[in-house]
């Protein structure tokens, strides 16, 4: 296999890992974004619904980070050092969320629970938004020097375009969380989640349109690949179809339908990001010659091959047991109706 092919494969694999994170951790992040809108009983439900899953969901990000480090060390080094304050804030948010999910149920005191409720809610919102802000900055391009080091400032990262992409990510995750609650929760919370879903959906549609137009005007290079390879239009089409169908999905008898539609939406969005960037990984502004591409940022052929073997051996296995365990944990639980009991017992 030629080096260029391997580099392309790894670009796709990193995207797949990010996608896995967005779809899986997306539901626990999204539930967190809505957490503070829920009442006490519903908050218990929220934690109970995501608690067995958040940790393995997060591993998609860790593995994505590891894969980025191994396959494209320069991208990992440039982005992580360039986004230093933002990443530290992200770490903080992730630590607080994790502690909240595992600790809140350990003591019965309301003050204890309230603290973790806030930690979980704010932590999730901050993390969801930061992912988008980082993505916005990458799409827009970063000021890099010839050694590929970031030359901008922290406040430069908080530009309006990236902040709007941050909001888009926030609504994307929130929509996913609401859809998850429609599928998984009990009682009143289902209807509440439907209302949240339908409101978030409107914000999402407006933000998606705004970002698309803004990108076309301000960063036209993001559209080049689409005009060269028209098949790529299928990605935005997926997103548009998902947005268009979402209100109907909320009405569907199958309560998993909104989550499925939201999953397609996320896949489409991340596909768009990948298709717009390729073969760039971090475009440089103002001098595109300093950009990090899959070609100049990658590891050697031997490393990429070794890693590909690792991925081919490991990932199918991961998907197999994750699916098996998730099904077990979700199915048995809803069948026994214990959640319903829990929701109605009061604390």
């Amino acid at each position, binding site marked *: 296999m030629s080096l260029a092919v391997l580099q392309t494969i790894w670009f796709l694999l990193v995207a797949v890992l990010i996608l896995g994170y967005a779809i899986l951790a997306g539901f626990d992040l999204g539930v967190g974004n809505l957490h503070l809108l829920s009442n006490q009983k519903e908050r218990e439900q929220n934690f109970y619904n995501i*608690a067995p899953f958040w940790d*393995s969901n*997060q591993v998609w990000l860790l593995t994505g980070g590891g894969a980025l480090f191994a396959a494209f060390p320069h991208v990992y080094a440039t982005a992580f050092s360039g986004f230093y*304050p933002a990443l530290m804030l992200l770490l903080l948010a992730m630590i607080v969320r994790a502690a909240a999910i595992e600790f809140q149920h350990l003591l019965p005191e309301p003050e204890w629970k309230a603290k973790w409720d806030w930690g979980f809610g704010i932590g999730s919102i901050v993390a969801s938004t930061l992912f988008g802000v980082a993505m916005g900055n990458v799409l827009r391009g970063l000021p890099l020097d010839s050694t590929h080091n970031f030359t901008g400032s922290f406040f430069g990262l908080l530009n309006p375009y990236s902040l709007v992409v941050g909001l888009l990510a926030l609504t994307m995750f929130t929509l996913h969380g609401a859809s998850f609650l429609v599928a998984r929760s009990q009682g009143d919370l289902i209807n509440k989640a439907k209302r949240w879903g339908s409101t978030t959906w409107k914000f999402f549609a407006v933000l998606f349109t705004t970002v698309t137009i803004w990108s076309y005007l301000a960063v036209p290079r993001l559209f080049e690949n689409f005009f060269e390879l028209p098949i790529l239009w299928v990605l935005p089409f997926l997103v548009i179809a998902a947005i268009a169908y979402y209100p109907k999905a909320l009405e569907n008898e199958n309560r998993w339908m909104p989550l499925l539609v939201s999953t397609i939406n996320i896949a489409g969005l991340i596909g768009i990001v990948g298709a717009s960037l390729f073969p760039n990984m971090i475009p440089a502004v103002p001098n595109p010659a300093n950009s990090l591409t899959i070609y100049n940022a990658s590891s050697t052929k031997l*490393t990429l091959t070794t890693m590909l073997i690792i991925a081919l051996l490991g990932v199918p296995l991961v998907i197999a047991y994750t699916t098996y*365990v998730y099904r077990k*944990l979700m199915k048995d639980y809803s069948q026994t109706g*214990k959640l319903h009991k829990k929701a109605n017992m009061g604390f």
Partner: protein
Amino acid sequence: MGDAVLLSKIQFAVSVGFHYLFPPLTIGMAWIIFFMQSMYLKTKNEQYDRMAYFWIKIFAISFVIGVASGVVMEFQFGTNWSEYSRFVGDVFGAPLAAEGVFAFFLESVFVGVLIWGKDRVSQKLYWVSSLMVAIGSTLSAFWIIVANSWMQTPAGYHVVNGRAELTNFFAAVFNPSTVPRYLHVIDGALITGSFFIMGISAYLLLKEREITFAKKSLKIALTVAVVASLLQLPLGHFHAVQVAETQPVKLAAYEGLFDTTAGAPLSLFGIPNAEAETTYLSVNIPKMLSFLVAGDTSATIKGLKEFPREEWPPLGITFQSYHLMVLLGIYFLAITVFGIFLLSRKKLYNNKTFLKVLMYSIPLPFLTNELGWIAAEVGRQPWIVYNVMKTNEAASIVVPGIQVLLSLVVLSLIYAILFSIWIFLLKRKLHVGVDEPVISGKQEEVTS
């Protein structure tokens, strides 16, 4: 930029130091929990189920802090050590990614079952999950040790175009220090987990609560602890010989040995001084070091003076942490052998003094792990990758000192809070007793 480098070093030390409190504990506990689960499945004795479940709850509180602080580890190479990441990514990233694919997923998917799934899955799957968590966390340690060992004794690479490039994956993974260090660390984890369970069981016995439960737990943990402490003798030795062969300057620092000596003594105590090039107040066993390293009392061991002064690690901290680690290792062996002696005389469970000693020994394996890690990492300085890249050349260029200072303060604060919560929750957990159902849907039926 100098201050940013120093601050990044401190931040790395604080983050790893905090993180490293938890994985050894959870790895060690995971195997003991698996054993209890297996006994339950085999004997159908409810006592084992209760036991396993109680320790799983304690495990869960510790596990989440390990996970939360572990994320910082993986990010930190990029955030604070970007020049390192650029230089070694081709070799160093692969073990981290492999850890994710081969270990993290396994551990975390099944830990969800272990902590939250007791009433949601079959007994069999629950048992399998406890095994998978033990295997996953042990494998996870493997890949981390691979990555860190490559920094100690790099292999399977060459330096081209200003970076380290992989030439042989298996040579890099099984570099000279991987296996000795891995065995040493995993055995340390078993000591940590078993001492923790022993200590808490001793506490319950002293409080005369849950007597049957505590006796059984204590016996299981003591058995693991004595075997693990005994094993640490050959494993520690194996590792020390590897250090002598592959990192002679580190060995010389461990031993405070300045002059290259034929028939070198083993240092028991001392205060090495780099300026004076001598070790004050040294207490030695003559010729013992040569014997241990080479199996020959007259073998020549290289002293520090053999190496350029600027390549010496900081002597005081390297020497003392190594010595204290060894001393504590011997203490673990002594105390557990004595425990087995008491057990055989049927005097273990009512010897209050001994139970108290066990209880107060809980922090010691944690301390020992930290000391071992300090000796290994400080002993490698000034190199970040031994003989290949200096630590001072590895930090991020673009991150200003003030940002690192800020993150250091915030992270330290968060770690302090998490640590207090951990202690607080453990105390509460012990206070409410063994059977208080905390996790799982079953509690609702009980309490409602």
